[in-house]
């Protein structure tokens, strides 16, 4: 059991999402940075898809009502346990009554709190993610509020976390060869042309060539981008069709929208491009105001990145398990 002591708005319970129901209009939801969820869960000894807390407004504080292993992942801010500064991306043990505090991180958007045993809210339609739009799932279908008491699953069979903690070389560092930044420091997000790309002049050069800014009208549903509007050469009447996170639509105003985790299941705006799936977590960590550029990708590149990420996750799983077992044996 944990209790929320302090929280900003729109902090929710999330897991890897609720795919499989988009054909009945249910958004997949799920964490904006699924890679952080997987690594956090692996480090505490959970299944990689266990439910966690997604914190995107700060400060945030919770109190542990039971001795628990926990990780704060995804973020570049140092969590505090009873005021003692800890490292992000590290598993630690919290004693009963200890308070975990997350302050506004320096650069990144979202922190994930994984707890040994997993956040145990009811599993609805195969997921514990909060569907904010549908008002179901997660913590009674709504964001976390001060005073909420949330059950945590049993830690049975979980290997103990070493007293000084156990962490990882975070993905952005371990996989930096696969996730470059531009020389000017803007975020490079790789994408492939989508259905209506041909309607934009000069092979979409106005879209690919400029640096966009994530506008303040951005949330878990989608990011609106500010910049020089891109307008199709002709207007087409689109029939409503399925969409997925990463789709970059161009509404009549010409400022693109990138659909994110709470993406609507259907859309009808012209689609200029689609972010490759393995870059979505980086977009999920980009804050309002972030400058970004889209880079044309390829299927071969997308596959290479996916494989690198998968082998990193597998390496963390195997090595952290091995170390925990070795330290337990030596203890």
């Amino acid at each position, binding site marked *: 059991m944990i209790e929320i002591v302090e929280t900003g708005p729109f902090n929710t319970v999330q897991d890897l999402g609720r795919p499989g*129901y988009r054909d009945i209009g249910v958004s997949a939801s799920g964490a904006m940075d699924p890679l952080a969820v997987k690594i956090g869960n692996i480090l505490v000894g959970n299944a990689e898809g266990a439910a966690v807390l997604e914190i995107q407004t700060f400060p945030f504080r919770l109190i542990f009502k039971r001795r628990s292993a926990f990780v704060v992942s995804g973020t570049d801010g140092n969590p505090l346990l009873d005021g003692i500064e800890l490292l992000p991306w590290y598993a630690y043990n919290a004693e009963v009554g200890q308070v975990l505090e997350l302050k506004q991180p320096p650069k990144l958007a979202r922190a994930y709190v994984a707890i040994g045993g997993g956040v145990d809210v009811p599993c*609805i339609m195969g997921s514990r993610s909060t569907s904010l739009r549908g008002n179901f799932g997660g913590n009674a279908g709504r964001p976390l509020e001060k005073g909420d008491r949330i059950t945590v699953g049993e830690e049975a069979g979980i290997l103990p976390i070493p007293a000084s903690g156990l962490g990882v070389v975070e993905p952005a560092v371990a996989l930096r060869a696969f996730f470059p930044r531009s020389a000017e420091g803007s975020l490079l997000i790789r994408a492939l042309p989508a259905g209506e790309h041909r309607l934009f002049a000069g092979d979409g050069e106005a879209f690919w060539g400029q640096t966009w800014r994530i506008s303040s009208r951005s949330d878990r549903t989608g990011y609106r981008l500010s910049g020089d509007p891109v307008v199709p050469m002709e207007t087409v009447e689109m*029939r409503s069709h399925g*969409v997925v996170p990463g789709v970059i639509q161009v509404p009549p105003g010409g400022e693109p929208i990138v659909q994110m985790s709470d993406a609507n299941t259907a859309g009808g705006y012209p689609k200029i491009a*689609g972010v490759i*799936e393995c870059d979505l977590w980086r977009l999920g960590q980009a804050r309002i105001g972030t400058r970004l550029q889209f880079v044309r990708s390829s299927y071969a590149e997308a596959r290479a990145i996916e494989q690198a990420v998968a082998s990193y996750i597998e390496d963390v799983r195997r090595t952290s398990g091995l170390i925990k077992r070795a330290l337990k044996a030596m203890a």
Partner: protein
Amino acid sequence: MIAPSNSHALQREILSSTKARARVSSIGARSFLLEAPGDFDLAAQRRIWALSQQVKGWSDIAEIIPGMTNILAILKETPEDPDVVVDRLLEAWDNARSIDLKGKTIEIPVHYGGQHATDLPALCDLSGLSDRDVVRIHHEATYRVFALGSAPGFGYLHGLDPRIYMPRKTVPSLRMEKGCVTIGGMQTGVAMLTGPNGWNSIGFAEMQMFDPTSASPAMMAPGDTVRFLPARIEL
């Protein structure tokens, strides 16, 4: 083989599909959208239903989203060669035989007019019909659920009488109540969530049509027949 009973219809469809091929595009590296050529009609949607049933069974498919005469196929993994996926979808479309889903019939009691019918006067102006006629035309028709999407359990209903077509608003209503009976272009449907909505409201339905805790959360399914029953008319 070819069913003898409607071979004419079948030949016509094969002919039309060779005239204009379906189009396949992609979203990201794993999702592929097939859009049927030709009109937005029941014939095209029946082939989409057939295609959906087939594609759903492919081993590399994570999920499908049937839309309005289109289908989005989401793969489990990024394919090595996207052209192979495109060809496979096009071939499946070319071979898709029209099916008619044996759906159930859903009767939805509607309170026409009243406080929720915010766009009924505008629809009367647009159509030149009286409010009474608009309501009568709406509830006398029989509708088919083409697909679900946009909101949990929301069914896009086909079969609206062209006399009461009304384009979506360019500026959506900021807060439309869940339950509003709405018209969007040539379609109708019942709003499933309270919030911004670009469709035009002419009435209100109390019926609960989505329950996330149920084994089958959505009441409507593609192919279902929907009738609106005028429980109350307040004009």
